[in-house]
């Protein structure tokens, strides 16, 4: 069982990497790209836990370490 975790900047927080990549995409012809948000993708594997416990652990890991809640938001999926 593992958690697939996505951490991105909150709306309203300037995302310098996202902005730079958006400009690069626009400059090579991707005119339809209006905005790009950068973030992190984290895979976390669990040993010997059920789904409910995995969800709880993923939530706690996001809150305590993986996301800085001042600037970032997170979501995750538990997959088998």
């Amino acid at each position, binding site marked *: 069982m593992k958690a697939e975790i996505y951490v991105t900047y909150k709306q309203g927080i300037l995302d310098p990497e996202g902005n730079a990549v958006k400009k690069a995409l626009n400059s090579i012809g991707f005119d339809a790209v209006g905005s790009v948000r950068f973030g992190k993708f984290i895979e976390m594997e669990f040993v010997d836990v059920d789904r409910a416990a995995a969800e709880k652990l993923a939530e706690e890991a996001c809150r305590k370490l993986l996301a800085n809640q*001042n600037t970032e938001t997170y979501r995750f999926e538990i997959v088998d």
Partner: protein
Amino acid sequence: MKIAVIVFPGSNCDHDAYSVLKGIRRMEVNFVWHKATDLNRYEAILIPGGFSYGDYLRAGSIAKFSPIMTSVIDKAKRGYPVLGICNGFQVLVESGLLPGALITNRNLKFLSRPVSLVTRTTDSVFTRNLNKGEKLVMPIAHRQGNFTADEETLKEIRDDDRIVFTYGSELGGNPNGSVLNIAGILNKERNVLGMMPHPERAADPLLGSTDGLKIFESLAGNS
């Protein structure tokens, strides 16, 4: 004043800070490894610059779980001065001792050059020797020094006179995109200062500026 310079794996301004503090009258300085847990004999703490834990995940985010940080937070809560420089500022923010966050510089570059600072408050042990509005020159060296916070936090630190340094207009102005040109802030109790510029790299005429000494002399209580 006995001051501890905390050393994390990846700290790289620890020796600079140590060497400068050693030269300050009435300062007694020691290195303290991050695995230590006891800071009882110290009256002040300095968290130096560098790349603690390689800056993995977010700068300062892993260092906050080092054993020593429990004692650093305890010292801070008991009113002892804690100074975080550069990566040290990032560690203090991640630890919750200071508000806001330090994100990637506006231009995505690692910036290593002198900046101009304006002293915004002298109401702290770190700046009591300075004058309000006094300009200082010292270097920055960071990629994640772009200070940001929500409106409510910004209002609070502004109303409480907790913005200590802002980037001045000289030497290229605000280098990293920090909101309100913020270069350094205090906690509510005014005993914890985090700043991105490096006073320890501006403490010898050979390095082009001795402005950084004013902060260490203030802290030591020397006139």
